[in-house]
């Protein structure tokens, strides 16, 4: 708690400059921590919601398992059938979905902050599409024969490099980068369609999950890479957070406050692309999560903060819910999670375009 309210300088009524925060100051060292209460409440609530969604996702499906049975099985006391369904089918899928959702949304939040534009998400500027094109090329056997999830990562990097090149090296802010990305996304989408229409139906079917986004096609190696990538990416983005916060102010002020915005942008962009590539390699292009997750997080977070954690949690929740809906609606046939996310997200995207300023600060 703030213990040293010193108002002698001001000669005014004491002001709680840190109201809404928990303050800790070391008595022996020049260390202090300022933790926003609202952030804690928001993140704790989102974590609880995510846990509830996760539990529902484990319990519901073509085979319904009661919550007590789920808990029994998680403790290792379930029936063989329940254990098989939870350990082999729903557990890994839930994990992959939550991680991919968190990655997409974190990547989206980073990129929106860097570009100061809520439309500047990796999905909208074509990174998902490029990653998909590369993955599909691998599935249908065009070009280099690396695993699809590796190719997805390569595709994300290539798209970003191209967008960078086309927009000019300093173009990450504003519309040039977005327009270049849109073009790359459109070209990538077209290439994917050409590849799909020119190969055997069975190959095209095998590539289908890559084109819409599905948690059914995940490769264990890709999930492992995503776990590591998300831990590293999240940690680094937290370290970047102090600088990211100042990016919300006008460019000269950002610089005047000692932030090397060019470097921060490049670092944030690399993180964002890495997270997106890894997420696409697991779940395919579910890019709208990168738009919806941070938007939800921003709505409930404190003004002026960069809701990195809340975005990741929101993204995970949205992905788990979309996948659950996709599994339940037309059971036993599945609707790929990407289609559900697109159905839920498109009206929102439209609403942003029509009613909100693209500036994330407005």
């Amino acid at each position, binding site marked *: 708690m703030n213990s040293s309210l010193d108002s002698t300088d001001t000669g005014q009524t004491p002001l709680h400059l840190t109201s809404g925060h928990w303050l800790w100051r070391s008595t022996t060292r020049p260390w202090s921590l300022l933790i926003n209460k609202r952030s804690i409440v928001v993140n704790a609530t989102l974590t609880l919601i995510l846990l509830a969604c996760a539990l529902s996702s484990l319990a519901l499906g073509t085979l319904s398992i009661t919550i007590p049975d789920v808990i029994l099985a998680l403790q290792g006391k379930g029936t063989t059938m329940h254990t098989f369904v939870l350990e082999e*089918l729903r557990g890994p899928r839930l994990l992959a979905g939550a991680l991919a959702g968190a990655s997409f949304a974190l990547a989206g939040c980073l990129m929106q902050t860097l570009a100061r534009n809520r439309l500047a998400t990796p999905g909208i500027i074509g990174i998902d599409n490029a990653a998909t094109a590369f993955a599909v090329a691998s599935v249908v056997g065009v070009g280099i024969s690396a695993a699809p999830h590796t190719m997805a990562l390569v595709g994300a990097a290539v798209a970003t490099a191209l967008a960078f090149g086309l927009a000019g090296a300093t173009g990450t802010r504003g519309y040039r980068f977005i327009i270049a990305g849109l073009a790359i996304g459109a070209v990538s989408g077209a290439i994917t369609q050409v590849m799909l229409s020119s190969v*055997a139906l069975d190959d095209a079917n095998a590539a*289908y999950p890559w084109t819409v986004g599905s948690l059914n096609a995940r490769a264990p190696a890709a999930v492992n890479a995503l776990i590591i990538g998300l831990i590293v990416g999240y940690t680094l983005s937290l370290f970047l957070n102090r600088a990211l916060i100042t990016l919300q102010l006008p460019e000269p002020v950002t610089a005047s406050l000692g932030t090397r915005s060019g470097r921060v942008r490049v670092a944030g962009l690399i993180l964002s692309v890495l997270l997106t590539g890894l997420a696409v390699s697991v779940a395919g292009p579910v890019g709208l999560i990168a738009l919806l997750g941070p938007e939800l997080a921003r709505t409930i977070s404190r003004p002026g903060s960069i809701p990195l954690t809340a975005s990741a949690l929101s993204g995970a929740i949205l992905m788990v819910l979309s996948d659950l809906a996709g599994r339940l609606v037309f059971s036993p046939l599945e609707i790929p999670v990407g289609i559900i996310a697109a159905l839920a997200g498109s009206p929102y995207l439209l609403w942003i375009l029509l009613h909100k300023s693209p500036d994330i600060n407005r």
Partner: protein
Amino acid sequence: MPNPLFVAKSLLISLVLAATFTNAAAHADTRIVQTAYGPVSIEGIPKRVVTLYEGALDAAIASGINPVGAIITRGGSDVAEYIQPKAKGVGIVGTPGETNIEAVIALKPDLILASAQLAKEQYNLLSRIAPTIVPNFPAFTPTTWKQETRLFTEALGRAETGRKVISGVENKIAEVAKLVDTKLGPNQRETALIRWMPQGPLVMSEGLFSASLLEATGFNVNSGGIVKEGRPHSHPLSQENLGLIDHQWVFLATLNADGDAALDAARESQAFQRLKANRADQVVTVNGQLWTSASGPLAATEILNDIANTIDNVAADR
């Protein structure tokens, strides 16, 4: 191959013993079949079979076993129309591209029959639910469906029925071939097999199941050299390239209403109307689910019926 007497005897034994002590019965009739993922042993006569491949559903029903689960046909929302009357009440467990493993588990299968394309990861999961049979024969040969039917019926404990069904189809082929011989001269048999999709016509491979039946009955299937080796069909053709398939006959399949609509639109075009087969009224529309997605003995019989009817009609016109 076990001899028929042995099969009949073990069948009888297993039925008798099943009522008393199941384990002994299982040991009495254990078959080992060779699959793409190695030998798989199957005990007794499977009662709850799930087929993840249209050819397997066909083979199972043809040999007298009604699967409890199957996948939908390409471009459809149920099993293929030709087999629906025989597959009443079958549970749907996925699409050709995606199996819902939970739905498979829910059906508690004791045998799973899959396609040669089943991925290793899927196999690893499915084989923990029930013995899973994945064929491993070269694709797009005239004998692929026979080899697969033999494998599936053997796994089902119906090897003998399977053999009979296959020879039945072979007899039927000979019958229709004779009919073709009597009605069509050797220079009147050139044909293309096309699937009309909303994005345009696909020329189907000469090795495709239905194409091999056309060949076997005396037609000369010519894909114009535009289908790549090992691929079931070409890229979609543009209208100006329809000339590549300007043969005396065109067997024309559509998968669903979208395909029908695209075909109806195309029929109005000059390019289509100029086709030799169109002018000779020898464009034969067939069901795409049957002709370009299905395989197996029942599908073969239906396709042969289609060919025979076509030839009959031709004869009536002349």
